[in-house]
Protein backbone atom coordinates (compact mmCIF):
# COMPACT_ATOMS: atom_id res chain seq x y z
CA UNK A 1 0.00 0.00 0.00
CA UNK A 2 2.78 2.35 1.03
CA UNK A 3 4.39 1.82 -2.32
CA UNK A 4 1.26 2.67 -4.18
CA UNK A 5 1.01 5.94 -2.30
CA UNK A 6 4.64 6.57 -3.04
CA UNK A 7 4.03 5.92 -6.72
CA UNK A 8 1.17 8.37 -6.85
CA UNK A 9 3.09 11.03 -4.94
CA UNK A 10 6.08 10.53 -7.20
CA UNK A 11 3.94 10.86 -10.27
CA UNK A 12 2.32 14.02 -8.95
CA UNK A 13 5.63 15.62 -8.03
CA UNK A 14 7.15 14.80 -11.38
CA UNK A 15 4.14 16.05 -13.27
CA UNK A 16 4.15 19.29 -11.33
CA UNK A 17 7.86 19.70 -11.84
CA UNK A 18 7.44 19.20 -15.53
CA UNK A 19 4.53 21.57 -15.74
CA UNK A 20 6.56 24.18 -13.91
CA UNK A 21 9.67 23.96 -16.01
CA UNK A 22 7.76 23.19 -19.15
CA UNK A 23 6.08 26.60 -19.31
CA UNK A 24 4.96 25.86 -22.77
CA UNK A 25 4.03 28.78 -24.93
CA UNK A 26 0.93 27.76 -26.71
CA UNK A 27 0.95 29.40 -30.05
CA UNK A 28 -2.05 31.59 -29.82
CA UNK A 29 -4.25 32.16 -32.72
CA UNK A 30 -5.05 35.80 -33.03
CA UNK A 31 -8.26 36.93 -34.46
CA UNK A 32 -7.33 40.16 -36.15
CA UNK A 33 -9.62 40.67 -39.01
CA UNK A 34 -10.55 38.04 -41.55
CA UNK A 35 -6.96 37.26 -42.43
CA UNK A 36 -6.28 33.55 -42.61
CA UNK A 37 -4.04 32.12 -39.93
CA UNK A 38 -1.51 29.67 -41.31
CA UNK A 39 -0.28 26.72 -39.31
CA UNK A 40 3.30 25.64 -39.78
CA UNK A 41 4.65 22.53 -38.08
CA UNK A 42 8.35 22.46 -37.41
CA UNK A 43 9.80 19.01 -36.83
CA UNK A 44 13.32 19.28 -35.51
CA UNK A 45 15.33 16.08 -35.21
CA UNK A 46 17.41 16.88 -32.14
CA UNK A 47 18.42 19.55 -29.71
CA UNK A 48 21.51 21.05 -31.32
CA UNK A 49 22.99 24.53 -31.64
CA UNK A 50 22.97 24.68 -35.44
CA UNK A 51 19.53 23.17 -35.73
CA UNK A 52 18.17 25.60 -33.14
CA UNK A 53 19.64 28.44 -35.18
CA UNK A 54 18.01 27.04 -38.29
CA UNK A 55 14.66 27.02 -36.54
CA UNK A 56 15.02 30.58 -35.28
CA UNK A 57 16.12 31.76 -38.70
CA UNK A 58 13.22 29.97 -40.34
CA UNK A 59 10.67 31.72 -38.13
CA UNK A 60 12.43 35.02 -38.75
CA UNK A 61 12.46 34.43 -42.49
CA UNK A 62 8.72 33.83 -42.41
CA UNK A 63 8.28 37.01 -40.43
CA UNK A 64 10.30 39.06 -42.92
CA UNK A 65 8.00 37.75 -45.65
CA UNK A 66 4.88 38.76 -43.78
CA UNK A 67 4.03 35.73 -41.72
CA UNK A 68 4.22 36.69 -38.09
CA UNK A 69 3.61 34.44 -35.15
CA UNK A 70 0.56 35.55 -33.23
CA UNK A 71 -0.74 37.53 -36.17
CA UNK A 72 -1.34 35.35 -39.14
CA UNK A 73 0.89 32.44 -38.25
CA UNK A 74 0.71 29.60 -35.79
CA UNK A 75 3.96 27.71 -35.31
CA UNK A 76 4.16 24.35 -33.64
CA UNK A 77 7.64 23.16 -32.79
CA UNK A 78 8.29 19.53 -31.97
CA UNK A 79 11.59 17.85 -31.26
CA UNK A 80 12.15 14.15 -31.87
CA UNK A 81 14.98 13.85 -29.35
CA UNK A 82 17.01 12.09 -32.05
CA UNK A 83 14.55 9.22 -32.41
CA UNK A 84 13.50 8.31 -35.91
CA UNK A 85 10.22 6.72 -34.85
CA UNK A 86 9.30 9.83 -32.89
CA UNK A 87 10.10 12.00 -35.91
CA UNK A 88 7.48 10.06 -37.85
CA UNK A 89 4.96 10.41 -35.04
CA UNK A 90 5.56 14.16 -35.05
CA UNK A 91 5.06 14.63 -38.76
CA UNK A 92 2.05 12.30 -38.78
CA UNK A 93 0.50 14.48 -36.08
CA UNK A 94 1.12 17.58 -38.20
CA UNK A 95 -0.55 15.88 -41.14
CA UNK A 96 -3.56 14.84 -39.10
CA UNK A 97 -3.82 18.37 -37.69
CA UNK A 98 -3.87 19.58 -41.30
CA UNK A 99 -0.92 21.91 -41.05
CA UNK A 100 -0.44 24.22 -44.02
CA UNK A 101 3.23 23.42 -44.24
CA UNK A 102 5.71 21.18 -42.51
CA UNK A 103 9.31 22.17 -41.99
CA UNK A 104 11.72 19.31 -41.38
CA UNK A 105 15.01 20.25 -39.78
CA UNK A 106 17.86 17.77 -40.37
CA UNK A 107 17.73 14.77 -42.69
CA UNK A 108 15.76 12.18 -40.64
CA UNK A 109 13.04 14.67 -39.75
CA UNK A 110 12.89 15.93 -43.33
CA UNK A 111 12.53 12.38 -44.61
CA UNK A 112 9.86 11.57 -42.03
CA UNK A 113 7.93 14.72 -42.95
CA UNK A 114 8.14 13.91 -46.64
CA UNK A 115 7.00 10.35 -45.92
CA UNK A 116 4.03 11.49 -43.81
CA UNK A 117 2.89 14.14 -46.25
CA UNK A 118 3.45 12.03 -49.34
CA UNK A 119 -0.19 11.35 -50.13
CA UNK A 120 -1.50 14.73 -49.03
CA UNK A 121 -1.19 18.19 -50.52
CA UNK A 122 0.79 19.50 -47.57
CA UNK A 123 4.12 20.91 -48.78
CA UNK A 124 7.31 20.03 -46.97
CA UNK A 125 10.20 22.45 -46.61
CA UNK A 126 13.46 21.13 -45.30
CA UNK A 127 16.61 22.69 -44.02
CA UNK A 128 19.95 21.48 -42.69
CA UNK A 129 19.90 18.55 -45.10
CA UNK A 130 23.39 18.26 -46.49
CA UNK A 131 22.70 16.05 -49.44
CA UNK A 132 19.04 16.22 -50.51
CA UNK A 133 19.78 14.02 -53.53
CA UNK A 134 21.20 11.18 -51.45
CA UNK A 135 18.30 11.61 -49.04
CA UNK A 136 15.99 11.25 -52.06
CA UNK A 137 14.29 14.52 -51.25
CA UNK A 138 15.43 15.74 -54.62
CA UNK A 139 16.00 14.05 -57.94
CA UNK A 140 19.45 13.63 -59.42
CA UNK A 141 19.05 16.85 -61.43
CA UNK A 142 18.17 18.82 -58.29
CA UNK A 143 14.46 19.07 -58.99
CA UNK A 144 12.16 18.23 -56.08
CA UNK A 145 11.07 14.60 -55.61
CA UNK A 146 7.56 15.82 -54.83
CA UNK A 147 5.96 18.64 -52.90
CA UNK A 148 9.22 19.04 -51.09
CA UNK A 149 12.02 21.55 -51.27
CA UNK A 150 14.26 23.55 -48.97
CA UNK A 151 17.83 24.38 -48.27
CA UNK A 152 20.93 22.29 -48.02
CA UNK A 153 23.66 23.04 -45.53
CA UNK A 154 26.29 21.69 -47.87
CA UNK A 155 29.60 23.18 -46.89
CA UNK A 156 31.31 25.71 -49.17
CA UNK A 157 34.28 23.38 -49.35
CA UNK A 158 36.06 25.08 -52.23
CA UNK A 159 36.05 28.38 -50.40
CA UNK A 160 37.17 26.71 -47.20
CA UNK A 161 40.17 25.13 -48.97
CA UNK A 162 41.04 28.47 -50.55
CA UNK A 163 40.90 30.09 -47.15
CA UNK A 164 43.07 27.45 -45.49
CA UNK A 165 45.59 27.80 -48.29
CA UNK A 166 45.65 31.55 -47.77
CA UNK A 167 46.12 31.40 -43.99
CA UNK A 168 48.58 28.53 -43.99
CA UNK A 169 50.31 28.45 -47.39
CA UNK A 170 52.68 25.70 -46.22
CA UNK A 171 50.00 23.34 -45.00
CA UNK A 172 50.26 20.12 -46.95
CA UNK A 173 48.24 17.75 -44.84
CA UNK A 174 44.80 18.72 -43.63
CA UNK A 175 43.09 16.42 -41.18
CA UNK A 176 39.39 15.74 -40.82
CA UNK A 177 37.75 13.88 -37.96
CA UNK A 178 34.33 12.42 -38.74
CA UNK A 179 31.75 9.92 -37.58
CA UNK A 180 31.44 6.91 -39.83
CA UNK A 181 27.70 6.80 -39.42
CA UNK A 182 27.05 10.36 -40.58
CA UNK A 183 26.19 10.41 -44.24
CA UNK A 184 26.79 14.14 -44.43
CA UNK A 185 30.36 13.81 -43.25
CA UNK A 186 31.14 11.01 -45.63
CA UNK A 187 29.89 12.96 -48.62
CA UNK A 188 31.71 16.14 -47.51
CA UNK A 189 34.96 14.23 -47.26
CA UNK A 190 34.51 12.98 -50.81
CA UNK A 191 34.26 16.56 -52.00
CA UNK A 192 37.27 17.59 -49.95
CA UNK A 193 39.35 14.80 -51.43
CA UNK A 194 38.27 15.73 -54.92
CA UNK A 195 39.18 19.41 -54.55
CA UNK A 196 42.20 19.29 -52.23
CA UNK A 197 44.69 18.45 -54.97
CA UNK A 198 44.17 21.85 -56.58
CA UNK A 199 45.76 23.47 -53.55
CA UNK A 200 48.55 20.95 -53.11
CA UNK A 201 46.82 19.58 -50.06
CA UNK A 202 46.27 15.97 -49.06
CA UNK A 203 43.35 15.11 -46.82
CA UNK A 204 43.94 12.82 -43.87
CA UNK A 205 40.78 11.40 -42.30
CA UNK A 206 40.05 9.56 -39.10
CA UNK A 207 36.63 8.04 -38.54
CA UNK A 208 35.13 7.45 -35.13
CA UNK A 209 31.92 5.69 -34.21
CA UNK A 210 31.17 7.39 -30.92
CA UNK A 211 32.13 10.26 -28.65
CA UNK A 212 34.33 8.01 -26.56
CA UNK A 213 36.68 7.44 -29.50
CA UNK A 214 37.31 11.12 -30.19
CA UNK A 215 40.13 11.64 -27.75
CA UNK A 216 42.24 8.84 -29.18
CA UNK A 217 41.43 9.68 -32.77
CA UNK A 218 42.37 13.32 -32.15
CA UNK A 219 45.72 12.34 -30.68
CA UNK A 220 46.41 10.18 -33.64
CA UNK A 221 45.40 12.56 -36.38
CA UNK A 222 47.18 15.51 -34.75
CA UNK A 223 50.47 13.64 -35.02
CA UNK A 224 50.15 13.51 -38.80
CA UNK A 225 48.70 16.79 -39.98
CA UNK A 226 49.52 20.50 -40.34
CA UNK A 227 46.01 21.61 -39.45
CA UNK A 228 42.51 20.30 -38.89
CA UNK A 229 39.30 21.34 -40.53
CA UNK A 230 35.86 20.54 -39.19
CA UNK A 231 32.73 19.35 -40.85
CA UNK A 232 29.28 19.77 -39.37
CA UNK A 233 29.65 16.33 -37.86
CA UNK A 234 27.54 16.18 -34.70
CA UNK A 235 29.70 13.83 -32.67
CA UNK A 236 32.87 15.70 -33.53
CA UNK A 237 31.43 19.17 -33.05
CA UNK A 238 30.05 18.18 -29.66
CA UNK A 239 33.55 17.23 -28.59
CA UNK A 240 35.17 20.28 -30.11
CA UNK A 241 36.50 21.47 -26.75
CA UNK A 242 38.51 18.27 -26.33
CA UNK A 243 39.89 18.51 -29.84
CA UNK A 244 40.83 22.18 -29.45
CA UNK A 245 42.63 21.47 -26.17
CA UNK A 246 44.75 18.82 -27.78
CA UNK A 247 45.37 20.83 -30.94
CA UNK A 248 46.41 23.96 -29.03
CA UNK A 249 48.85 21.92 -27.02
CA UNK A 250 50.55 20.92 -30.25
CA UNK A 251 50.09 24.37 -31.80
CA UNK A 252 48.04 22.93 -34.61
CA UNK A 253 45.34 25.26 -35.95
CA UNK A 254 41.78 24.05 -36.31
CA UNK A 255 39.48 25.48 -38.96
CA UNK A 256 35.77 25.46 -38.44
CA UNK A 257 32.68 24.94 -40.54
CA UNK A 258 30.40 27.47 -38.90
CA UNK A 259 30.37 30.52 -36.73
CA UNK A 260 29.68 28.83 -33.37
CA UNK A 261 32.86 26.81 -33.70
CA UNK A 262 34.87 29.94 -34.39
CA UNK A 263 33.56 31.50 -31.22
CA UNK A 264 34.82 28.44 -29.35
CA UNK A 265 38.36 29.00 -30.56
CA UNK A 266 38.77 27.73 -34.10
CA UNK A 267 40.95 30.02 -36.19
CA UNK A 268 38.56 30.73 -39.02
CA UNK A 269 35.73 29.33 -41.05
CA UNK A 270 34.37 29.83 -44.50
CA UNK A 271 31.08 28.60 -43.26
CA UNK A 272 27.45 28.55 -42.88
CA UNK A 273 25.50 30.86 -40.69
CA UNK A 274 22.61 28.63 -39.81
CA UNK A 275 20.43 31.57 -38.87
CA UNK A 276 20.91 32.93 -42.39
CA UNK A 277 20.23 29.49 -43.82
CA UNK A 278 17.05 29.28 -41.75
CA UNK A 279 15.98 32.72 -42.96
CA UNK A 280 16.51 31.70 -46.55
CA UNK A 281 14.39 28.62 -45.91
CA UNK A 282 11.70 30.68 -44.21
CA UNK A 283 11.46 32.88 -47.26
CA UNK A 284 11.03 29.83 -49.49
CA UNK A 285 8.30 28.59 -47.17
CA UNK A 286 6.60 31.99 -47.37
CA UNK A 287 6.50 31.80 -51.16
CA UNK A 288 4.81 28.45 -50.92
CA UNK A 289 2.34 29.63 -48.28
CA UNK A 290 1.43 32.65 -50.33
CA UNK A 291 0.74 30.36 -53.24
CA UNK A 292 3.26 32.13 -55.46
CA UNK A 293 5.05 28.90 -56.20
CA UNK A 294 4.53 25.25 -55.48
CA UNK A 295 7.23 23.43 -53.57
CA UNK A 296 7.56 21.04 -56.48
CA UNK A 297 8.49 23.95 -58.73
CA UNK A 298 11.39 25.13 -56.61
CA UNK A 299 14.82 23.58 -56.72
CA UNK A 300 16.46 23.19 -53.37
CA UNK A 301 18.97 25.91 -52.54
CA UNK A 302 22.33 26.09 -50.87
CA UNK A 303 23.43 29.00 -48.71
CA UNK A 304 23.42 32.05 -50.91
CA UNK A 305 26.07 33.91 -48.98
CA UNK A 306 28.68 31.85 -47.15
CA UNK A 307 30.62 34.07 -44.85
CA UNK A 308 34.09 34.22 -43.45
CA UNK A 309 34.40 34.12 -39.67
CA UNK A 310 37.71 34.73 -37.94
CA UNK A 311 38.94 34.43 -34.39
CA UNK A 312 41.96 36.68 -34.04
CA UNK A 313 42.63 35.59 -30.46
CA UNK A 314 42.86 31.94 -31.49
CA UNK A 315 45.21 32.86 -34.34
CA UNK A 316 47.41 34.94 -32.06
CA UNK A 317 47.66 32.12 -29.52
CA UNK A 318 48.92 29.86 -32.25
CA UNK A 319 51.37 32.43 -33.55
CA UNK A 320 49.61 32.88 -36.85
CA UNK A 321 49.63 36.36 -38.29
CA UNK A 322 46.49 37.08 -40.19
CA UNK A 323 46.53 39.42 -43.09
CA UNK A 324 44.65 42.61 -42.22
CA UNK A 325 42.71 42.55 -45.45
CA UNK A 326 41.71 39.02 -44.69
CA UNK A 327 40.36 39.87 -41.26
CA UNK A 328 38.51 42.83 -42.72
CA UNK A 329 36.81 40.65 -45.29
CA UNK A 330 35.23 38.57 -42.55
CA UNK A 331 31.54 38.84 -41.89
CA UNK A 332 32.41 38.75 -38.26
CA UNK A 333 35.66 38.51 -36.35
CA UNK A 334 36.06 37.61 -32.71
CA UNK A 335 38.89 38.66 -30.45
CA UNK A 336 38.14 36.35 -27.59
CA UNK A 337 37.47 32.70 -26.99
CA UNK A 338 34.17 31.91 -25.36
CA UNK A 339 34.17 29.05 -22.94
Amino acid sequence: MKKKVLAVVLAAVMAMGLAACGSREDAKESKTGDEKTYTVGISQFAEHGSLDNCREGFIEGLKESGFEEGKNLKVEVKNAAADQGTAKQISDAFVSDKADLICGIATPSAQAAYNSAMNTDIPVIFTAVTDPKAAKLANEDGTPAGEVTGTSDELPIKKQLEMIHKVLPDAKKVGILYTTSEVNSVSAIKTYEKLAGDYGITIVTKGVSQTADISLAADEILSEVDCLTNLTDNTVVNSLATILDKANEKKIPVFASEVEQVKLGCVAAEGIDYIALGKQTGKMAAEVLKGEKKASEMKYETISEPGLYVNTKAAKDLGITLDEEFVKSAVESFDSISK
Partner: protein
Amino acid sequence: MAIFVTTLEQGLIYGILALGVYITYKILDFPDLTVDGSFPLGAAITATMIANGVNPYLTIPASFLAGAAAGVCTGLIHVKCKVRDLLSGIIMMTALWTINLRLAGTANVPIFGDESIFDNSWMNKVFGGGLASYKVLVVVLVIAVISKVLLDLYLKTKSGLLLRAVGDNANLVTSLAKDQGNVKILGLSIANGLVALAGSIFCQEQRVFEISSGTGAIVIGLASVIIGTSLFKNVRLVNTTTAVLIGSVIYKACVAAALKFFEPQDMKLITAVLFLIILIIGMDRKKKVKKNA
Protein backbone atom coordinates in the same frame (compact mmCIF):
# COMPACT_ATOMS: atom_id res chain seq x y z
CA MET B 1 -7.55 10.08 -35.86
CA ALA B 2 -4.36 9.78 -37.87
CA ILE B 3 -2.33 10.12 -34.73
CA PHE B 4 -4.05 7.04 -33.29
CA VAL B 5 -3.32 5.16 -36.47
CA THR B 6 0.36 6.11 -36.32
CA THR B 7 0.57 5.19 -32.65
CA LEU B 8 -0.98 1.80 -33.33
CA GLU B 9 1.24 1.25 -36.37
CA GLN B 10 4.43 2.05 -34.51
CA GLY B 11 3.24 0.32 -31.36
CA LEU B 12 2.64 -2.89 -33.25
CA ILE B 13 5.90 -2.68 -35.19
CA TYR B 14 7.82 -2.24 -31.96
CA GLY B 15 5.51 -4.88 -30.52
CA ILE B 16 7.12 -7.46 -32.79
CA LEU B 17 10.48 -6.31 -31.48
CA ALA B 18 9.08 -6.60 -27.97
CA LEU B 19 8.05 -10.20 -28.67
CA GLY B 20 11.70 -10.91 -29.39
CA VAL B 21 12.81 -9.10 -26.26
CA TYR B 22 10.17 -11.06 -24.33
CA ILE B 23 11.85 -14.29 -25.40
CA THR B 24 15.29 -13.22 -24.25
CA TYR B 25 14.40 -11.15 -21.20
CA LYS B 26 11.45 -13.06 -19.76
CA ILE B 27 11.82 -16.59 -21.07
CA LEU B 28 15.58 -17.02 -21.37
CA ASP B 29 16.43 -14.58 -18.59
CA PHE B 30 19.17 -13.26 -20.89
CA PRO B 31 19.66 -9.47 -21.08
CA ASP B 32 20.30 -9.39 -24.82
CA LEU B 33 21.69 -6.13 -26.18
CA THR B 34 22.09 -7.60 -29.66
CA VAL B 35 18.68 -6.02 -30.28
CA ASP B 36 20.19 -2.57 -30.82
CA GLY B 37 22.07 -4.06 -33.76
CA SER B 38 19.64 -6.64 -35.10
CA PHE B 39 16.79 -4.12 -35.42
CA PRO B 40 18.71 -1.93 -37.90
CA LEU B 41 20.10 -5.14 -39.43
CA GLY B 42 16.60 -6.02 -40.59
CA ALA B 43 16.21 -2.46 -41.84
CA ALA B 44 19.56 -2.47 -43.65
CA ILE B 45 18.81 -5.72 -45.46
CA THR B 46 15.35 -4.52 -46.37
CA ALA B 47 16.51 -1.16 -47.72
CA THR B 48 19.28 -2.81 -49.72
CA MET B 49 16.97 -5.45 -51.19
CA ILE B 50 14.25 -2.96 -52.04
CA ALA B 51 16.69 -0.47 -53.55
CA ASN B 52 17.89 -3.32 -55.77
CA GLY B 53 14.39 -4.08 -56.94
CA VAL B 54 13.79 -7.31 -55.05
CA ASN B 55 10.16 -8.19 -54.30
CA PRO B 56 9.45 -6.44 -50.98
CA TYR B 57 7.70 -9.48 -49.50
CA LEU B 58 10.97 -11.37 -49.67
CA THR B 59 12.48 -8.88 -47.24
CA ILE B 60 10.41 -10.41 -44.44
CA PRO B 61 11.92 -13.91 -44.44
CA ALA B 62 15.32 -12.48 -45.39
CA SER B 63 15.47 -10.09 -42.46
CA PHE B 64 14.15 -12.73 -40.06
CA LEU B 65 16.91 -15.10 -41.14
CA ALA B 66 19.58 -12.42 -40.89
CA GLY B 67 18.42 -11.52 -37.39
CA ALA B 68 18.35 -15.18 -36.44
CA ALA B 69 21.95 -15.52 -37.66
CA ALA B 70 22.95 -12.55 -35.51
CA GLY B 71 21.23 -14.21 -32.55
CA VAL B 72 23.12 -17.43 -33.20
CA CYS B 73 26.39 -15.44 -33.15
CA THR B 74 25.52 -13.87 -29.80
CA GLY B 75 24.63 -17.34 -28.53
CA LEU B 76 27.88 -18.85 -29.76
CA ILE B 77 29.89 -16.05 -28.17
CA HIS B 78 28.09 -16.64 -24.89
CA VAL B 79 27.96 -20.44 -24.90
CA LYS B 80 31.11 -21.49 -26.71
CA CYS B 81 33.46 -18.66 -25.74
CA LYS B 82 31.92 -18.45 -22.27
CA VAL B 83 31.51 -14.68 -22.42
CA ARG B 84 28.96 -13.24 -20.02
CA ASP B 85 25.46 -12.71 -21.40
CA LEU B 86 25.44 -8.92 -21.26
CA LEU B 87 28.89 -8.69 -22.85
CA SER B 88 28.06 -11.13 -25.65
CA GLY B 89 25.18 -8.91 -26.63
CA ILE B 90 27.34 -5.80 -26.50
CA ILE B 91 30.01 -7.43 -28.65
CA MET B 92 27.47 -8.48 -31.26
CA MET B 93 25.71 -5.11 -31.16
CA THR B 94 29.02 -3.38 -31.79
CA ALA B 95 29.91 -5.72 -34.63
CA LEU B 96 26.50 -5.25 -36.23
CA TRP B 97 27.02 -1.49 -36.41
CA THR B 98 29.73 -2.03 -39.00
CA ILE B 99 27.91 -4.88 -40.68
CA ASN B 100 24.80 -2.72 -41.08
CA LEU B 101 26.82 0.17 -42.42
CA ARG B 102 28.55 -2.12 -44.92
CA LEU B 103 25.33 -3.84 -45.94
CA ALA B 104 23.49 -0.62 -46.59
CA GLY B 105 26.52 1.18 -48.04
CA THR B 106 25.80 4.38 -46.13
CA ALA B 107 24.14 5.39 -42.91
CA ASN B 108 20.95 6.60 -44.54
CA VAL B 109 19.24 4.82 -47.42
CA PRO B 110 15.90 6.30 -48.47
CA ILE B 111 13.46 4.10 -50.39
CA PHE B 112 10.78 6.70 -51.04
CA GLY B 113 10.01 5.86 -54.62
CA ASP B 114 10.29 2.10 -54.36
CA GLU B 115 7.72 -0.59 -53.75
CA SER B 116 7.31 -1.87 -50.22
CA ILE B 117 5.07 -4.36 -48.47
CA PHE B 118 2.73 -1.41 -47.88
CA ASP B 119 3.02 0.28 -51.20
CA ASN B 120 2.81 -1.79 -54.35
CA SER B 121 0.35 -2.17 -57.15
CA TRP B 122 -1.44 -5.10 -55.52
CA MET B 123 -1.81 -3.44 -52.13
CA ASN B 124 -2.96 -0.21 -53.70
CA LYS B 125 -5.65 -2.09 -55.58
CA VAL B 126 -6.94 -3.78 -52.43
CA PHE B 127 -6.79 -0.65 -50.32
CA GLY B 128 -8.27 1.90 -52.64
CA GLY B 129 -10.03 5.10 -51.69
CA GLY B 130 -10.83 5.75 -48.05
CA LEU B 131 -9.07 2.63 -46.82
CA ALA B 132 -5.70 3.85 -48.01
CA SER B 133 -4.84 5.54 -44.72
CA TYR B 134 -5.38 2.26 -42.84
CA LYS B 135 -3.27 0.25 -45.25
CA VAL B 136 -0.12 0.29 -43.17
CA LEU B 137 -2.00 -0.40 -39.95
CA VAL B 138 -3.79 -3.41 -41.40
CA VAL B 139 -0.60 -4.93 -42.79
CA VAL B 140 1.30 -4.30 -39.56
CA LEU B 141 -1.55 -5.73 -37.52
CA VAL B 142 -1.66 -8.87 -39.65
CA ILE B 143 2.09 -9.40 -39.36
CA ALA B 144 2.10 -8.71 -35.62
CA VAL B 145 -0.78 -11.10 -34.99
CA ILE B 146 0.77 -13.81 -37.16
CA SER B 147 4.08 -13.40 -35.31
CA LYS B 148 2.31 -13.57 -31.98
CA VAL B 149 0.24 -16.64 -32.86
CA LEU B 150 3.23 -18.47 -34.31
CA LEU B 151 5.24 -17.66 -31.21
CA ASP B 152 2.41 -18.87 -28.98
CA LEU B 153 2.17 -22.10 -30.95
CA TYR B 154 5.91 -22.55 -30.87
CA LEU B 155 6.08 -22.10 -27.11
CA LYS B 156 3.64 -24.99 -26.78
CA THR B 157 5.76 -27.39 -28.81
CA LYS B 158 8.30 -29.71 -27.22
CA SER B 159 11.07 -27.42 -28.37
CA GLY B 160 9.15 -24.44 -26.97
CA LEU B 161 8.70 -26.09 -23.59
CA LEU B 162 12.41 -26.77 -23.46
CA LEU B 163 13.11 -23.13 -24.30
CA ARG B 164 10.91 -22.00 -21.43
CA ALA B 165 12.63 -24.51 -19.18
CA VAL B 166 16.13 -23.22 -19.93
CA GLY B 167 15.35 -19.76 -18.59
CA ASP B 168 13.39 -21.12 -15.70
CA ASN B 169 15.81 -23.79 -14.58
CA ALA B 170 18.71 -24.43 -16.92
CA ASN B 171 19.82 -27.31 -14.76
CA LEU B 172 16.66 -29.22 -15.60
CA VAL B 173 17.46 -29.02 -19.29
CA THR B 174 20.78 -30.71 -18.62
CA SER B 175 18.95 -33.32 -16.56
CA LEU B 176 16.72 -33.92 -19.56
CA ALA B 177 19.80 -34.89 -21.55
CA LYS B 178 19.75 -31.71 -23.65
CA ASP B 179 22.56 -29.20 -24.10
CA GLN B 180 21.34 -26.00 -22.47
CA GLY B 181 23.75 -23.99 -24.58
CA ASN B 182 22.08 -25.08 -27.80
CA VAL B 183 18.66 -24.27 -26.40
CA LYS B 184 19.85 -20.78 -25.47
CA ILE B 185 21.29 -20.27 -28.95
CA LEU B 186 17.98 -21.34 -30.46
CA GLY B 187 16.10 -18.91 -28.26
CA LEU B 188 18.42 -16.04 -29.12
CA SER B 189 18.08 -16.73 -32.81
CA ILE B 190 14.28 -16.73 -32.73
CA ALA B 191 14.29 -13.57 -30.62
CA ASN B 192 16.64 -11.66 -32.90
CA GLY B 193 14.83 -12.96 -35.94
CA LEU B 194 11.68 -11.27 -34.66
CA VAL B 195 13.62 -8.11 -33.84
CA ALA B 196 15.08 -7.92 -37.35
CA LEU B 197 11.63 -8.58 -38.79
CA ALA B 198 10.39 -5.58 -36.83
CA GLY B 199 13.33 -3.60 -38.21
CA SER B 200 12.36 -4.56 -41.75
CA ILE B 201 8.78 -3.39 -41.30
CA PHE B 202 9.92 -0.23 -39.53
CA CYS B 203 12.22 0.59 -42.44
CA GLN B 204 9.37 0.17 -44.91
CA GLU B 205 7.01 2.26 -42.84
CA GLN B 206 9.61 5.01 -42.51
CA ARG B 207 10.71 4.48 -46.11
CA VAL B 208 14.28 4.95 -45.06
CA PHE B 209 17.04 2.98 -43.43
CA GLU B 210 18.84 5.00 -40.82
CA ILE B 211 21.77 3.50 -38.93
CA SER B 212 20.77 5.17 -35.70
CA SER B 213 17.31 3.59 -35.70
CA GLY B 214 18.57 0.81 -33.46
CA THR B 215 19.86 3.08 -30.74
CA GLY B 216 17.69 2.52 -27.72
CA ALA B 217 15.64 -0.24 -29.37
CA ILE B 218 16.33 -2.52 -26.42
CA VAL B 219 14.96 0.11 -24.06
CA ILE B 220 11.72 0.37 -26.01
CA GLY B 221 11.49 -3.42 -26.13
CA LEU B 222 12.13 -3.86 -22.43
CA ALA B 223 9.71 -1.09 -21.54
CA SER B 224 7.00 -2.69 -23.66
CA VAL B 225 7.56 -6.13 -22.16
CA ILE B 226 7.54 -4.82 -18.61
CA ILE B 227 4.56 -2.52 -19.10
CA GLY B 228 2.58 -5.27 -20.80
CA THR B 229 3.39 -8.07 -18.42
CA SER B 230 2.92 -5.93 -15.30
CA LEU B 231 -0.40 -4.48 -16.35
CA PHE B 232 -1.96 -7.70 -17.56
CA LYS B 233 -0.40 -10.07 -15.04
CA ASN B 234 -3.72 -10.99 -13.51
CA VAL B 235 -5.94 -10.65 -16.54
CA ARG B 236 -6.75 -14.17 -17.63
CA LEU B 237 -8.09 -13.30 -21.07
CA VAL B 238 -4.87 -11.64 -22.15
CA ASN B 239 -1.96 -14.00 -22.57
CA THR B 240 1.60 -12.81 -22.22
CA THR B 241 2.41 -12.29 -25.87
CA THR B 242 -0.75 -10.24 -26.35
CA ALA B 243 0.16 -8.29 -23.24
CA VAL B 244 3.57 -7.55 -24.73
CA LEU B 245 2.03 -6.25 -27.96
CA ILE B 246 -0.37 -4.07 -25.99
CA GLY B 247 2.50 -2.93 -23.77
CA SER B 248 4.32 -1.68 -26.82
CA VAL B 249 1.28 0.23 -28.06
CA ILE B 250 0.93 1.78 -24.60
CA TYR B 251 4.58 2.80 -24.69
CA LYS B 252 4.15 4.50 -28.05
CA ALA B 253 0.93 6.12 -26.85
CA CYS B 254 2.90 7.56 -23.94
CA VAL B 255 5.40 9.00 -26.39
CA ALA B 256 2.55 10.47 -28.40
CA ALA B 257 1.00 11.94 -25.26
CA ALA B 258 4.32 13.32 -24.13
CA LEU B 259 4.73 14.91 -27.54
CA LYS B 260 1.33 16.48 -27.29
CA PHE B 261 1.38 17.72 -23.73
CA PHE B 262 4.98 18.14 -22.73
CA GLU B 263 8.20 19.51 -24.04
CA PRO B 264 10.09 16.91 -26.07
CA GLN B 265 13.09 17.23 -23.81
CA ASP B 266 11.01 15.88 -20.95
CA MET B 267 9.89 12.81 -22.83
CA LYS B 268 12.50 10.45 -21.49
CA LEU B 269 11.88 11.58 -17.93
CA ILE B 270 8.15 11.04 -18.36
CA THR B 271 8.79 7.60 -19.77
CA ALA B 272 11.07 6.79 -16.87
CA VAL B 273 8.49 7.94 -14.33
CA LEU B 274 5.73 6.00 -16.01
CA PHE B 275 7.97 2.98 -16.08
CA LEU B 276 8.71 3.26 -12.40
CA ILE B 277 5.05 3.64 -11.49
CA ILE B 278 4.05 0.59 -13.48
CA LEU B 279 6.83 -1.41 -11.88
CA ILE B 280 5.84 -0.37 -8.39
CA ILE B 281 2.20 -1.23 -9.01
CA GLY B 282 3.30 -4.56 -10.47
CA MET B 283 5.34 -5.32 -7.35
CA ASP B 284 2.41 -4.55 -5.09
CA ARG B 285 0.33 -7.15 -6.82
CA LYS B 286 2.97 -9.80 -6.51
CA LYS B 287 3.12 -9.26 -2.77
CA LYS B 288 -0.60 -9.57 -2.40
CA VAL B 289 -0.66 -12.86 -4.20
CA LYS B 290 1.99 -14.16 -1.85
CA LYS B 291 0.09 -13.01 1.20
CA ASN B 292 -3.03 -14.79 0.07
CA ALA B 293 -1.22 -18.00 -0.71
